């Protein structure tokens, strides 16, 4: 690989949209799933995985063109990428930096991992709610049954 190629951007800069950097290596697909970016939308999405990173060893990067993700959408990421950095791009420049914030409660992002939880009854209409007990380490409890959630299991329960 020649010198000019190594310094070349793996993904081209975007004109307008959202860049999510410092996603833990290998989690980009999960991030897309959490954001509901499933390929059916009209906007282009680029993704690179396992990019070398001084801070993280390896990381994933996602660029969503022509769409500014809302704070609410981004906060969903806190479950798997709490330290991701998010930039809103307008006219090729960083117009805003956003911080992912889990808040006190995660609503309608994931459903409870405890099979006998009342919130999992057929057609029950109330929102799925997880209380944030602590962020570091990430510790969530179901608002209804009170069970502590295993985070690795929880990300399989995305709504």
């Amino acid at each position: 690989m020649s010198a000019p190629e190594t310094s070349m951007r793996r993904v081209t800069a975007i004109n307008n949209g959202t860049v999510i950097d410092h996603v833990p290596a290998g989690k980009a697909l999960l991030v897309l799933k959490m954001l509901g970016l499933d390929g059916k939308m009209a906007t282009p999405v680029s993704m690179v995985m396992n990019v070398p990173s001084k801070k993280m060893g390896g990381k994933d990067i996602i660029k969503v063109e022509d769409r500014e993700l809302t704070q609410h959408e981004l906060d969903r990421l806190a479950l798997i990428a709490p330290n991701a950095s998010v930039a809103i791009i307008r006219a090729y420049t960083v117009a805003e930096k956003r911080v992912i914030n889990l808040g006190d409660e995660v609503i309608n992002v994931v459903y409870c991992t405890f099979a006998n939880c009342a919130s999992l009854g057929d057609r029950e209409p109330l929102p799925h709610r997880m209380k944030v007990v602590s962020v570091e380490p990430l510790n969530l409890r179901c608002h209804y049954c009170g069970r502590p959630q295993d985070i690795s299991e929880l990300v399989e329960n995305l709504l």
Partner: protein
Amino acid sequence: MSSLITMDDLSDEDIQEVLNAAERLLPVAKGDIHLPLLQGRILGNLFFEPSTRTRMSFETAMKRLGGEVVNLGAVASSSVVKGETLYDTIRMVDGYADVIALRHPRQGAAQYAADAAEVPIANGGDGAGHHPTQTMLDLFTIRQAHGRLNGLRVILAGDLRYGRTVHSLAHALVRFNCELVFASPKGLKMPEEIIEDLEGHGATILESEDLLNHIDDADVIYMTRIQKERFPDEDEYRKVAGSFSLSADNLNNAKEEMIVMHPLPRVDEISPDVDKTRHARYFEQAFNGVVTRMALLCRMLGVEVPAKIGGEA
């Protein structure tokens, strides 16, 4: 106070206040004094699982205070079998009743119902979750016998793994600095996460696979039923159940004021000869379900229990 879902909904002061109100209501619970504090109010009893004591004592509590009760009746003959959601059932009863007592097989059902309802919900047991009105009547029984809750040595014995009653009670006793002994067969130990949680609150806990060795130092022995279906075969069950049962002989060296409690129904874990000893409190405990639920219903409905009840001015 609105709903009572877990014991966390009550502060230590709230607990003492409810127990004080319950004590004042004793003559009303016994039917000696007529005091229709809840006249014109309706309790909706929604029991999605079998219950004798909890359902009947809620009903008695409401009626002793002049209130009315509407029952869901058997789940098999209700809209639930037609696929009605818990949400819809609650919204419907919400329009019929001023307060709802709920028992449900799913954990978290009481919180779910409280979020759906306008009226307060009293959790009468939700799956393996909480059973706070049982805990309150247990605390009432203990305080009645010892005059206090603080600093007692309490043995919780039997099935500590699956029993929501002992989970709630252990949490409550730790708030009053009680020393806890968890006596259970190997496979039915108190869940590790509960022990960690209790120790996080500064609890002193002793775990044991033996019950009899701890009796002499105890202020309270709280027995629970060991269910046959938890064991692979009948022999194994008999062996274990036999070592977690009490007879009058076992209590010869117990402290005079020590009490034996049981949420009932009992099978073999307390021999009938214990009934006649000064230690037996399980039938009083069952009666206390009425008086404690009376005090809780008043509280949930915002009705003050008079400071003096009866003849004294």
